[in-house]
């Protein structure tokens, strides 16, 4: 029972339990907080598998930016909590059944894979190596992703201002 296996099993237990709790909460803030716990455990799993830069980025981007954005949006919106539309059992039976069937099928497929019996050793990659590799081989993807982030910024700004009907021309300009 080596340390790697103990860490992996405890981290995957935390990930699965906190994600299961996150997707079943009625209160959205509770769901986001459970998901932040899941992302922290995922970040530790990334570090365990040998990607320290990805672990740090997972905390910064996923848990630190995306989930905080979720919390801001939830807090600024007065979302209705109608009691009659709470988590209904009838609404969940069919998805849970589908989930079980898909898990059984995927476990069978994974067990048939000849790679499934390989022992994973952590492939440790320093940030220098991954940065050099990214910019040497995928520089075009990095540029496109920066353009994509800019496009997302413009889109979010435009939608946040209220879209087309509330944009008014300046004084003295023709509409």
């Amino acid at each position, binding site marked *: 029972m080596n340390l790697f296996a103990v860490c*992996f099993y405890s981290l995957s237990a935390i990930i699965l339990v906190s994600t299961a709790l*996150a997707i079943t909460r009625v209160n959205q803030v509770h769901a986001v907080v459970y998901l932040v716990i899941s992302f922290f455990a995922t970040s530790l799993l990334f570090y365990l598998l040998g990607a320290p830069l990805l672990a740090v980025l997972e905390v910064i981007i996923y848990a630190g930016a995306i989930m905080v954005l979720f919390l801001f949006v939830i807090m600024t919106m007065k979302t209705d909590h109608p009691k009659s539309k709470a988590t209904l059992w009838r609404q969940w039976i069919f998805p849970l059944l589908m989930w079980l069937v898909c898990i059984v099928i995927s476990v069978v497929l994974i067990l048939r894979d000849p790679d499934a019996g390989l022992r994973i050793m952590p492939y440790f990659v320093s940030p220098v190596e991954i940065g050099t590799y990214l910019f040497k081989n995928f520089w075009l993807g990095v540029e496109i992703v920066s353009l994509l982030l800019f496009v997302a910024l413009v889109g979010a700004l435009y939608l946040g201002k209220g879209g087309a009907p509330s944009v008014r021309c300046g004084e003295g300009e023709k509409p």
Partner: protein
Amino acid sequence: MTVYYGEILALSTILFLMGVVCAIARRNLIMILIGVEVMLNAAGIALVAGSARWEVLDGQAMVFFIMAFAAAEVAVGLALILFLHRRTGSVHSDTYSVMRG
């Protein structure tokens, strides 16, 4: 007792299917987006595991891109939800069952 490659793939698959269940069983638009985030995270776990198994860096590079565009997608998605909430006053997906205009 060591960790097998199939176990990490099984973890990633179960997590991905949990995200699918969240996206299809919840009626709140924000919870659907949370399901999408869980799915992207599960794909990231599978990619890092593949990168460790074949000992190449391609999997970790792809997780970079996944994180970047997941952030962009969440920004635009939440802006859309805010816009919809401002227009109709609810984030329950049953409100959007009729096309108007």
